[in-house]
Structures are given as C-alpha cells and as structure tokens.
C-alpha cells in the first residue's frame, strides 16, 4: 500500500516525540538524538579516544540498529547483502564523522538544533544541501560504488550483535568508560534510551527516513514525500522547545555549538557529499546495517574510527569553536571526497 504524505509526516512527528522524550529525561541540550555524537560517545566509552567529556555507551545507537532489524525481520525485508566497495564505504564513514564533528552534529542533530532556534544550524544546512547537490552531480555523471550481493543470512546481523554485546557489557560491568562531566555525563535512563532507540529505528526503517536521500530524491524526482518525515521531526521538536522554553533564536549561546559559519558549512558539505556517495546519511546507514547490509555496517564502523581520529588528533570542535587541525582536516576531507567522486565517475565512463 502506498503511504500517504500525511502518514509520512506522522512518522516524522512520532520520531520527533521520541527525541523530545529523550531530551526531557536527560540527554544533552539540542542533542536529544545525534547519530554522530552518540557513536562518538560510544567509541569513547570503549576507549577508542580519551576525550573524557564524551564517553558513554549510548543505548539509542544499539536500539536504532536492532529496532530496524526487528521490523525488517517481521516484515520479511531483512536481506543480508555485501560486496559494494566495503573499504570505500568505511573511508566515507570516517570522513562523514570528521565533517560532522567539525560542525558538531549529524544531519539529525542539525535539524534538532534548527528546531531549537540555533541559527548556526540553519547556516550549516546550506553546506549540507550543497554537498548533496554535488553528490547528485556525480551520480548523474555515472558515479557508483557498485552493486551488493546477497550473502550468508547471519552476516548481516554481525553489527547488531556486536552493539548488543557492547551495551550488555556497559550495563552489567564497569569496563566501559563513563563521563562524569560534559555531554557524555548527560543522558536519559538506560531503559528509556533503549526503548526510544528501538522505536526510532523501527520508524526510520518503515518510513525510510534519510536526511541525504530525501534531498537527493527531491533533486532527481521533485518528490517531497521523504522530506515530510524530516519535517515531522522538526515540527515535533519545535513544539517541544517552544513549550519547554528551550527555543532561543540566536547564533550565540547555543548548547554544544559554535558560530564559525564557514567551518559549519564545510563540515556539513562533507557530510552531505559523503552521505550521497555512500547512499545514505548516518541514521540511514544504521538502519541499513540493521536490515542486513554489511556495506552499511562498514560505513558505521568507519564512523566509529572517524570519531576516534577526530578526538585523538583534536579535529573535533567544541563550544569554543573549531581547532586548527579540524579546519585543515575538513578541507582535506572535502578535497578527497571530490576526488572520490571524480575518479568514480571517470571509471564508469571508461
């Protein structure tokens, strides 16, 4: 059955309500649900980096992957696939994370920040859409990472199992690191985070929520249906912020954000371009990994490593602003992504 536009908007609103719940019960300001930040926190908890303010195993990440997997299994849409340029997808994941941590958020957090009145996020949207438009240009000229192939059914569930093990170890042992200050110390109760993550993953799987794909589809088909899901998230969080007094229309004084616009634009340009070349934003990669795509799982693992690189080499920004290394890195990432697009396109033409 074809889903009506209202239904898609409703799914988005439902996702936004879940994000609002997480914000209300303790997740950091304007960071109720951020794929990049939460992967970064989880990587930190496992000791992949030593930034002691951003270390905590986020159950939301585990929930999104497993929630998508459960719904895909129920709807018989789970398909274990692999073989589409896994190392390139890993590298795209690394670069996605570097861009996101220079801006300070993935596309989902960008929308949450926009809904809280953070004008810096509205500026970053220019970069994100520009990155997707550039990626669309490469796709139009024939860029492709190649097709994937169906494989051993269990293969598609490896990431889900790994993440569940990490979460179980986190709640039953003391081997994971936990921040006592900073964003990593702010979190909703574990069970609530997990349940919201599971529900969000199921919603994202069913509605095919994708921040990059929705703009890409708009460019190629002029179809707005996928953007409606995102609009729903925005509206729900806007209402929550206005009602709760957390809506502040300004550039300055926004939680865990900076106002260095050029770098916000370039950071999100890198995210938009990398996501379009990889076939989905960070959230979509988690959902695809849950549905059985080992290629998407490679991208997710790349984001874990990217988070470690960003913090170990001081590329990640903070509320004080970007770092010199971060600025160099994001320019390098943009150049590499453009080269990837050009080379991929040229190979296709040959």
């Amino acid at each position, binding site marked *: 059955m074809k889903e009506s536009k209202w239904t898609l908007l409703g799914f988005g609103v439902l996702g936004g309500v879940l994000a609002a719940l997480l914000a209300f019960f303790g997740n950091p300001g304007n960071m109720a649900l951020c794929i990049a930040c939460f992967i970064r926190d989880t990587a930190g908890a496992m000791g992949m980096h030593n930034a002691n303010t951003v270390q905590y195993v986020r159950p939301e990440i585990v929930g999104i992957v497993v929630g998508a997997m459960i719904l895909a299994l129920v709807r018989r849409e789970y398909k274990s696939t692999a073989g589409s340029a896994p190392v390139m997808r890993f590298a795209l994941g690394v670069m996605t994370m570097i861009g996101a941590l220079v801006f300070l958020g993935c596309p989902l957090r960008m929308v949450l920040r926009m809904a809280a009145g953070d004008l810096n996020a509205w500026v970053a949207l220019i970069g994100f859409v520009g990155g997707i438009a550039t990626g669309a240009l490469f796709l139009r000229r024939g860029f*492709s990472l190649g097709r994937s192939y169906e494989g051993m059914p269990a293969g598609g569930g490896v990431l889900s199992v790994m993440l569940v093990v990490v979460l179980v170890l986190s709640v039953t042992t003391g081997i994971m690191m936990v921040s006592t200050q900073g964003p990593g110390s702010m979190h909703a109760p574990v069970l609530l985070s997990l349940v919201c993550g599971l529900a969000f993953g199921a919603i994202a799987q069913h509605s095919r929520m994708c921040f990059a794909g929705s703009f890409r589809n708009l460019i190629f088909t002029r179809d707005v249906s996928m953007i409606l899901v995102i609009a729903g998230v925005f509206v729900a969080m806007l209402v929550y912020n206005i009602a709760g007094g957390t809506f502040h229309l300004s550039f300055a004084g926004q939680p865990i954000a900076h106002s260095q616009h050029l770098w916000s634009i370039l950071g999100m340009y890198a995210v938009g371009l990398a996501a379009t070349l990889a076939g989905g934003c960070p959230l979509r990669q988690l959902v695809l990994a849950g549905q059985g795509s080992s290629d998407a799982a490679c991208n997710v693992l790349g984001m874990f490593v990217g988070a470690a690189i960003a913090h170990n080499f001081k590329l990640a920004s903070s509320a004080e602003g970007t770092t010199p290394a971060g600025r160099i890195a994001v320019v390098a990432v943009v150049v590499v992504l453009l080269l990837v697009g050009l080379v991929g396109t040229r190979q296709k033409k040959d």
Partner: protein
Amino acid sequence: MLRKPQLRLVITFHTTAEALRTEQLARAAGLEGRLIPVPRQLSAGCGLAWSGAPETEKTLRLTLEGAGIQAEQMAQLTI
C-alpha cells in the same frame, strides 16, 4: 494537486547510477516515464526507480539489455 492512481511499469535497480542511466536511455528512445522514489511496496530501500507506461515494458527490456543494465525488479503497480 492530487494525481489519480494508475497502473505503471515500475523498474528498480541495484544502483542509483543505473536508474539515472535508464532515464537517459528512455528519454533518448522517446519513451514516456520518469524517475520516482522506489515504491515502499516493492522495497525497503530508499533509492530511485523508473516509472513508465506498462506498454513500454518490452521496449525497455530490450533497451536495458542492450545497455548491460540488470533490473532488480520489474513490476506493474497501481501508484
């Protein structure tokens, strides 16, 4: 403006590049149709599909075969 649902030939692909190439080929051949997001009833993927007139199926099959494009699915749907 709401469009009345009608029977369409819908083709899905393994890659976005193949969908875009199909659009070029169909246009060059003068075949009616356009790219659409993959219908939810066909796939959980978020890629692009080709939607054309059902009577163009045979011509499209030959065109895709000639260009070395392998369709993932080809179905007639009311969308």
